[in-house]
């Protein structure tokens, strides 16, 4: 309450000080002094130091003399005095603001205005600042060593600026990719959470190459062989010299196959090293369209692109809402599980880790059994 009153008085002082009304500056000084005494009396001592007062008196005196010389002595006195009072008010209000408007009040104000993302960007900037200062120092030293001088020349500054800006640009990409890989939805656009009753979800997880896709394939085969309708898609990877060179899409129902992604490091899309092909997305849409009733949905794999509402997400969301599957099997990276389960509104979840389970397909089938119809499987 006291703080609010002090800030209201300080704001009123700033407003009244600049009115074209002769008592205005006096009233403003009164309000500013009251604000400081109410909130922090030390602000007056800090603001009106001897050096500051001498400077203000000199500036006001010069202004007064100039106006007196140009118009009349009383006009000069009035002008000099008004300026003196206005500057005293500004100095006190600035002193109060400098001490009490901190980063926390800034963040609160942004949140109150509905600008939480700007608040997050501010936090990110605060963390990035020391790193950038360090990068600037390193670039400076590297250039000095290369030039064999203690300090680089002035004409080297554009090259230094380019280096630092390129470093910042790479940091932008790395930060965005790191946020996406951790399933952070705070700074990116997020698709709406899928409302309604969620089916049983079995998550197949594990690092790249742990056998998630073969497990999903074996599981889909076992379900189909047991008479349980299955729909969805698999994304078998292509390996070249121990590196993932791309991946295809396979429609579980028809067995149709199409190219989805191929590695093109420099031209990668969506923050990945892969270029995506529309025919792959089209086949995935087809695999998820017109699903059978009471089927098991298999989606192998969805990732950061889908977390932003892109890639396969619209088709998966449509199938989730329209088909009402009896259960769903999703292959996900471990760090994305909470984000996806939140997005799907899933509550009944079993996680099968392909790295820990010797037979992940059998473990997933066992996890699915409460949702499957009785009978031979």
């Amino acid at each position, binding site marked *: 309450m006291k703080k609010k009153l002090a800030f209201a008085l300080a704001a009123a002082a700033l407003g009244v000080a600049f009115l074209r009304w002769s008592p205005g500056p006096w009233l403003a000084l009164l309000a500013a002094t009251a604000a400081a005494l109410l909130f922090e009396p030390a602000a007056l001592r800090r603001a009106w130091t001897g050096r500051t007062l001498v400077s203000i008196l000199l500036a006001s005196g010069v202004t007064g003399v100039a106006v007196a010389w*140009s118009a009349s002595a009383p006009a000069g006195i009035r002008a000099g005095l008004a*300026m003196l009072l*206005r500057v005293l008010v500004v100095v006190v209000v600035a002193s109060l603001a400098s001490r009490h408007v901190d980063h926390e009040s800034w963040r609160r104000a942004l949140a109150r205005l509905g600008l939480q993302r700007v608040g*997050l960007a*501010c936090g990110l900037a605060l963390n990035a600042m020391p790193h950038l200062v360090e990068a600037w120092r390193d670039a400076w030293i590297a250039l000095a060593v290369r030039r064999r001088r203690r300090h680089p020349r002035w004409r080297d500054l554009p090259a230094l600026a380019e280096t630092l800006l390129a470093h910042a*640009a790479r940091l*932008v990409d790395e930060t965005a990719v790191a946020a996406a890989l951790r399933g952070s939805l705070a*700074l990116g656009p997020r698709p709406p959470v899928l409302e309604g009753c969620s089916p049983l979800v079995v998550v197949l997880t594990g690092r790249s190459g742990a056998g998630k896709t073969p497990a999903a394939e074996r599981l889909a085969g076992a379900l189909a062989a047991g008479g349980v309708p299955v729909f969805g898609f698999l994304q078998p990877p292509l390996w070249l010299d121990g590196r993932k060179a791309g991946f295809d899409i396979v429609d579980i129902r028809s067995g149709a196959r199409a190219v989805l992604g191929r590695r093109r490091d420099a031209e990668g899309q969506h923050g990945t090293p892969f270029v995506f092909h529309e025919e792959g997305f089209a086949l995935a849409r087809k695999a998820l369209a017109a699903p059978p009733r009471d089927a098991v949905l298999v989606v192998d794999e969805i990732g950061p692109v889908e977390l*932003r509402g892109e890639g396969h997400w619209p088709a998966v969301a449509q199938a989730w809402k329209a088909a009402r599957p009896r259960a769903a099997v999703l292959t996900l990276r471990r760090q994305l599980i909470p984000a996806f389960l939140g997005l799907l509104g899933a509550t009944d979840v079993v996680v099968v880790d392909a790295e820990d389970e010797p037979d992940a397909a059998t473990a997933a089938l066992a996890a699915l059994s409460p949702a499957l119809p009785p009978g031979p499987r």
Partner: protein
Amino acid sequence: MSGRDARAWTAAAVFGALWGAAEVTLGALLSAARVPLGGVVMASLGVVCLVTARRLHPAPGQSLAMGAVVAFLKVFSMGGLLLGPVVGILTEALAVELAFSALGVRLPAAMLGGAAALASAPAWMLLWAALLTGPEAVQVVERAMRMAAATAGWRGATSGGLVAALVSAVAVVGAGVGAMAWRLAGRVVARVRGRA
């Protein structure tokens, strides 16, 4: 700002951090040492950061978000929050935002944004001085400026004309800074993505 991914926001944050670091170190130093045209130097650095971020990851509202980030970082400046520089930073960001919104992410927008951003510094300074000293002092300064202009051979000059001349001169420098920033941003894009 509703980019396809978080890059527009992370660009606002990281390039804002770069500009903010310059403001709290070099800006504070120039201000404390009362270096002439220190404001123009800092505004130029701001334009370089604003233009580079916009050219790398164009998204409406990004420049304004970056202005808010730098204003936030200014809280950590020596001597705490300084109202004048914060208003100046937000005005520069708004000028660049309006230029890119109106003309698209192109060289003319960078030049217009640079001109408006740099011209805003002396415009604010003059407005602030006029408010502090009062109308009588402004009249005296006007008269003195007209006399000085007449002595220099510019007869019939009005105070508005003189202020416009000063602001325009800074704006021309700003347009040059905007063009240079655009070129530098192009080189950064080429370096990061392997093409211009």
